[in-house]
């Protein structure tokens, strides 16, 4: 029933990192690369629950409630939605020290065709630095599981959000 052989290796690795981190509920606002991740969750991680949020700020609010209820939360979003979520980071997650494993599918990197993606895509790192959210860019499938797990460990021990940025160079790789 599982179709792991056709799944993109990077997506399999991201999911493995989330599972290894003990996160069993992912709240997300979808984008195209993340659809591969969601398919792997559905096919290979039946115990993991996913919830769609209408916008990114809401996703982090839901994640805060999951954490308060004893669940390690993951939020997945596209880089374009980071701006939508800043109020949740700065006035809920950071002051209350609520950790969320944050997985950001990057747009707006060199090679981007859509100018509407570029300003935020370029600013993601600087914005996360400005609010002191640690982040690591993942550009290769064989680094993805360890990097996601590393971010999760940092988040759930420091009790603050930590982010993984999924580079387009990696997420553009076709399915095997």
């Amino acid at each position, binding site marked *: 029933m599982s179709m792991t052989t056709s799944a993109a290796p990077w997506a399999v690795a991201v999911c493995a990192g989330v*599972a290894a981190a003990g996160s069993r509920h992912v709240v997300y606002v979808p984008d195209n690369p993340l659809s591969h991740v969601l398919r792997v969750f559905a096919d290979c991680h039946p115990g993991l629950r996913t919830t769609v949020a209408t916008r990114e700020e809401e996703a982090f*609010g839901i994640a805060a*409630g999951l954490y*308060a*209820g004893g669940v*390690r939360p993951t939020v997945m979003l596209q880089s374009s939605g980071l701006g939508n979520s800043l109020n949740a980071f700065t006035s809920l997650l950071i002051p209350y020290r609520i950790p969320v494993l944050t997985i950001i599918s990057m747009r707006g990197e060199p090679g981007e065709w859509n100018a509407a993606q570029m300003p935020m895509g370029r600013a993601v790192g600087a914005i996360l630095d400005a609010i002191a959210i640690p982040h690591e860019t993942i550009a290769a499938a064989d680094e993805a599981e360890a990097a996601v797990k590393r971010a999760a460990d940092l988040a759930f021990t420091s009790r603050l959000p930590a982010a993984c940025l999924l580079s387009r160079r990696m997420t553009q790789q076709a399915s095997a």
Partner: protein
Amino acid sequence: MTATVTRLEATGIVLEALERDPAAPIIASLGHPAYDLFAAGDRPANFYTWGSMGLASSMGLGLALARPDLPVFVLDGDGSLLMNLGSLATIGWTKPARLVVIVWDNGLYGTTGGQDTATAHGADLEAAARAMGIDRSVTVRSAEDLRRAVARALTEPGPWVIVAKVTESRPGVKPSLDYVAIKERFMAAIGSPEAAVAESSA
């Protein structure tokens, strides 16, 4: 606006209904709803937000998904819910049976000086909730109706949205500004102590 109950009195009615359930979480939206919750009765299972306007119902949703064993109460404001109406769509989709979102609807941004909200000009939050698939949506205008609605919400599966028309109270006290202590006390009170979450992994 035909409300006959102040928000502080109305908050007391909710606390009364939960008197025998000290582990029932209550998440209060920032500003006056949180101040009134503290004034009406501080308890460890109260979560006072001090920011993130609009996210109280989202937090309640996440908690209700994580802990279907608990009745989860959210004390929101009309202005706050208007800021995050998408939350109603997600609640209507996921339908956690024991989530109870109470919206203190005074038609005002009470914490910021009393500017009108859209509910003073026709916006109907009960209808919005219903339109998003939350069938258990009601509007109450008196203490007695609120008491009855909360009692129903505690016995009949939801999710519930109770739009309570209230008048503005003038809160005189505020909860702790130690946000981390609020969270830690809350998580311990509802039975998900934070240390256990830190230790849990695959």
